[in-house]
């Protein structure tokens, strides 16, 4: 071990002396390698940032990886089973969905059916055994949206991004005027249409006066509002919330291993309602797409890196050719052959490492500049951090290039006969 340490330190000292003696050559090698390492760093950084962005978007709509989700046919009994079982628990949240209209009473909403505000899903229809006929009514200023009633803070399962205002507070006494948190599409709708604060929900005892407390990005393209279940049920019976005739939604989000899942499943099965449960695996779903994309870009970066390796190889061979006497002399004073190879490899490895450091530095600076310039218009690049994986990839690329570029010159150096010093 001691001997190995001495040899390693010897090759490091001699390698550094060699680099200092040939600064220009080292710089030229670095330049030839720089683009290749930079390409690897940029590809890895881009892939990591894209992966994080894709994953963040998927988490917004599907939830964090590992979250258990249970869906079932909406019914009054199912809603009661879910709300009574999950009430007051921190490991499970029930989401009950229903349509509501906020605005002038008795008028058709500007987006019938709760469509995105710039899309037209056609007029609302009233259907019976004779067919469907459009529902008539006067036009006015009202917005239809999906109302999602929550039994607890769902953000531990779905990382909504708070855009403005406050999220729902589940620790306070329920308010009589339901507090709503809008998603981006709903906020856009209310930004365009100034409507009176009156909310109609099918089956409610009265029209209620909602209060908007904040806006979140939930990744949903439809206008949606989140509300505390206990505030909504002041006005609306739970049975109406889960009414399949009013497009009711019923969903349970849980931590993995939560006992709620088993209890709810048993109760629902007893009622003849077979639930469907699954685990969110967003990362796995996007992996195939990202792997293919990454392979294509890495292949391109690899080609550029190979050109850099050829540069190191070329300079390395020329340098060894110039240092024949030095290496022969080193052998004469007892330096083993493999240490001579080690000296050359140390020089090319250090060159690769210095290049990697330069490429990483340029990438970090470049990312900061891009973030500053286009960050305001591109949320993906706002305050984006340089991914450490890209740094690691750059260092590995530098080291691999150093080994590949230095291997043949190292073999040459090890093969130089000592007799060279006698013949000189």
């Amino acid at each position, binding site marked *: 071990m*001691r*001997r190995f*340490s*001495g*040899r390693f*330190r*010897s*090759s490091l*000292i*001699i390698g550094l*002396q060699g680099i*200092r*003696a040939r600064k220009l050559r080292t710089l030229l090698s670095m330049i030839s390698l720089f683009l290749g390492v930079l390409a690897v760093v940029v590809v890895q950084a881009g892939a990591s940032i894209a992966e994080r962005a894709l994953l963040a978007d998927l988490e917004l709509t599907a939830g964090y990886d590992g979250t258990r989700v249970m869906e079932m046919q909406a019914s009054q009994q199912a809603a009661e089973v879910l709300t009574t079982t999950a009430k007051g628990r921190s490991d499970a949240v029930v989401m009950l969905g229903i349509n509501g209209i906020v605005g002038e009473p008795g008028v058709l909403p500007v987006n019938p059916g709760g469509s995105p505000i710039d899309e037209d899903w056609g007029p609302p229809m009233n259907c019976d055994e004779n067919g469907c006929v459009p529902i008539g009514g006067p036009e006015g200023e009202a917005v239809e949206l999906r109302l999602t009633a929550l039994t607890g803070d769902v953000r531990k399962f779905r990382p909504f991004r708070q855009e403005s205002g406050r999220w729902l507070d589940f620790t306070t006494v329920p308010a009589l005027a339901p507090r709503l948190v809008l998603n981006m599409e709903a906020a856009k709708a209310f930004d365009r249409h100034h409507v009176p604060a009156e909310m109609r929900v099918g089956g409610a005892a009265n029209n209620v006066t909602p209060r908007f407390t904040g806006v979140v990005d939930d990744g949903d393209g439809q206008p949606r509002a989140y509300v505390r279940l206990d505030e909504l049920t002041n006005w609306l019976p739970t049975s109406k919330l889960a009414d399949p005739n009013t497009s009711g939604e019923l969903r349970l989000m849980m931590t993995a291993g939560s006992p709620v899942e088993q209890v709810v499943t048993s109760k629902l099965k007893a009622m003849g309602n077979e639930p469907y449960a699954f685990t969110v695996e967003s990362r796995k779903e996007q992996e195939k797409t990202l792997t293919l994309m990454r392979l294509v870009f890495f292949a391109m970066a690899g080609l550029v890196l190979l050109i850099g390796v050829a540069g190191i190889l070329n300079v390395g061979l020329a340098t060894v050719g110039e240092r024949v*006497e*030095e290496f022969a*002399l*080193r*052998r*004469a*004073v*007892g*330096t*083993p*052959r493999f*240490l001579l190879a080690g000296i050359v490899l140390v020089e090319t490895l250090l060159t690769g490492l210095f290049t990697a450091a330069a490429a990483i530095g340029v990438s970090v600076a470049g990312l900061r500049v891009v973030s500053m310039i286009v960050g305001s218009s591109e949320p993906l690049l706002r305050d984006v951090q340089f991914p450490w994986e890209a740094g690691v990839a750059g260092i590995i690329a530098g080291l691999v290039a150093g080994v590949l570029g230095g291997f043949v010159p190292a073999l040459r150096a090890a093969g130089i006969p*000592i*007799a060279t*010093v*006698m*013949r*000189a």
Partner: protein
Amino acid sequence: MTTALIELSGITKVLKGQEQPRTILDGVGLTVHPGESVAIVGRSGSGKSTLLSVIGLFDRPDSGSYLLDGQEIARLPERRAARLRSSHFGFVFQRFFLLKHLTAAQNVAMALVNGQGWHPRRQRRTRVMEALEQVGIAHLAKNRPTKMSGGEQQRVAIARALVRDPKVLLADEPTGALDTETGTLVIDALLSATQRGCGLILVTHDRDHAARMGRTHDLIDGVLNERVAAR
């Protein structure tokens, strides 16, 4: 009588790869004791450097016996030969082979930073300065070879050979590129090493320098003969 440092007997070296194989060394025998100085003289192409290569373990003899400190080393693998070169031998060549980008001290330290054992920086510095003092140029430790005269450069090369306290110094025409006066100083430096028990084998054309050695051998057509009359 002490054990011989070097004991060659029947050493033969044939140069192959030509139409006619050429015998460079033909049954050479030579014994060197600690503190003894030996000059080998001969015409160009007589095999002097080849003999030195065999003695310094740069090359292997085709046949014969080579005892170093009583151990047979004629067929040594390269790794062990490198270790012995480092521990037993110091080499001085006609050309000084100093690395231009290193200072005199760093050039001397080169023999210590060779992967054969590790010498901490402070220890390295002490040994390098001692070696430079032995050859009288400690004051030039920080100078680069390009700023030194030929004699000074050769003394740096001798310091490099001495820094590991070798048992044998092998000098191949060390004064060949120097004027007479400087050459004499270099021979003085080499001979001073023999006073500390180091054996010296000097290959030279210069009869005056050869005369200062304890013994002189003539190498003629690969055959080594001791010159009795020269004593």
